[in-house]
């Protein structure tokens, strides 16, 4: 039965445990000097956890995300999914970028279908149904046949989210996906992404330089410091969901994390 297969495809929430062990990564700058982007970074992220990486630019948070995505390789150490080392990109990890990276030659549903087409166990009709379900999940089902350039920035990121969710990855990687949006749109998307996480319980790693955003979204906030990129501190956020970014407790906690961040960036510049 198609229905059963679809039900299984949509209502099965695979998730994974991720571990990063002693990862180092160097970059060579244009003038030939070596910059240590990641210095002996180790951490564990549990199944279904929503973790935010926060830090100033140059702290290696995006580099670590790219290593987990398999787009870059560490110089030493490794990243593992459920105990298996990551050697390249894979369908179990989907990535969302700061730019929406949607394909302008496809319409909205065509974009969501792109990742699904790489899944061999479905036929085209089932793929279409799955794509429609995820567009509905991000409230974009009315725009299935719109062209990308006709959408607003927030709508584009919603479609990008649906495109990342549709192949049902175990882990969702998000690299500052909301930083190019205006404040109003961003606040709506904070609600939407928490809603999606409640429903789908993916392991999510969310990279941002905005502490408030990290506290609003993450169950855990991992603070990075730059030059060399290291994990500095880990905070657990126990505030009830859905969280509002303007909530007082949330503001207090982000204040605390911000002063920790300021403390060691100031110490290093002395």
């Amino acid at each position, binding site marked *: 039965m198609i229905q059963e297969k679809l039900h299984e495809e949509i209502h099965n929430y695979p998730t994974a445990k991720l571990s990063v062990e002693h990862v180092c990564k160097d970059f060579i700058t244009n003038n030939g000097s070596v910059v240590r982007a990641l210095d002996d970074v180790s951490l564990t992220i549990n199944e279904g956890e929503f973790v935010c990486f926060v830090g100033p630019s140059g702290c290696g948070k995006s580099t670590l995300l790219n290593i987990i995505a398999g787009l870059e390789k560490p110089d030493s150490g490794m990243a593992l999914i459920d105990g298996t080392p990551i050697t390249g990109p894979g369908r179990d*990890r989907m*990535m969302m970028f700061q*730019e929406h990276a949607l394909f*302008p030659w496809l319409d909205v549903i065509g974009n969501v279908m792109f990742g699904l087409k*790489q899944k061999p166990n479905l036929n085209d009709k089932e793929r279409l149904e799955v794509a429609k379900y995820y567009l509905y999940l991000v409230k974009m089902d009315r725009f299935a046949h719109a062209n990308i*350039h006709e959408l607003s920035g927030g709508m584009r990121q919603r479609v990008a989210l649906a495109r990342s969710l549709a192949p049902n990855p175990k882990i969702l990687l998000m690299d500052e996906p909301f930083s190019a949006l205006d404040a109003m749109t961003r606040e709506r998307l904070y609600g939407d992404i928490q809603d999606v996480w409640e429903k789908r319980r993916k392991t999510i790693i969310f990279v941002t330089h905005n502490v408030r955003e990290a506290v609003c979204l993450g169950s855990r906030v991992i603070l990075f410091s730059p030059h060399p990129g290291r994990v500095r501190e880990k905070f657990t956020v126990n505030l009830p969901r859905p969280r509002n970014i303007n909530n007082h407790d949330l503001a207090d906690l982000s204040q605390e994390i911000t002063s920790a961040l300021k403390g060691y960036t100031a110490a290093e510049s002395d």
Partner: protein
Amino acid sequence: MKRVLITIIFFLLLILVWAALTGDLAFMGIDIALWSPYVLPPPSTVGQYLWDNTLNGKIPLSMLITLRRLLIGYAIGLIIGVPLGMLAARFRSVNDTLGMLALGLQALPSVCWVPLACIWFGQTEAALLFVVIMGTLWSVLLSTQNGMKNVPPIYARAARTMGSTPLHTLVFVTLPASAPFVVSGMKQGWAFAWRSLMAAEIYVSVVSGFGIGQYLHYGRELQRMYQVIGVMFIIILVGLLADKILFSPVESWLHRRWGTGKE
């Protein structure tokens, strides 16, 4: 609608001026006739030539012969040019060798190939095709290369994270992403092919069929300027039609999807 009207009035005025200066409006008392009809024939003579030769089938046949040469030469130019352009975009060594050759030869007007083409192939269809291909190939190659290079790398990265293999990425991401550039390159290639073929037909007489360009050539030989001007009109017409039929639909689809510049 108003803009169309303005365009039509403009062209009617042009023809009216031409008619007035060549004595066609003598019946209205405007009898200037600045030049002898051997130098500048009146529109009526040109119209008569076009009408007669369309009815007796000479013009349609020559258009058919010319279009066949054009399509074959253009298709060969595309089949060779597009893949070479992709290779030049992908591999630096191809860019430094073939890319440089293309850059150099693109600067050479294709009519310069006519003497060599006649020696190598004789007065045959092959000589004509060779000139057309030389006119098309290099510009198609360069614009394909340019198009592929302009594809934002984020598309390929996004595709890779979705499990797309390098070959799949090339076919389903890089190629469609470069489509706007490649299509405008194909259009430019078409314009070059058309110019090359006209030059070749004027310079190379072949027995395998009289194309439009050859009618223009014989118009010159026989001092029949009305024939020359009539053929020039046909050349313009074919060029415009090809643009509207072949490229306009594709371009307007691209503009709609991409949301790029529309007037």
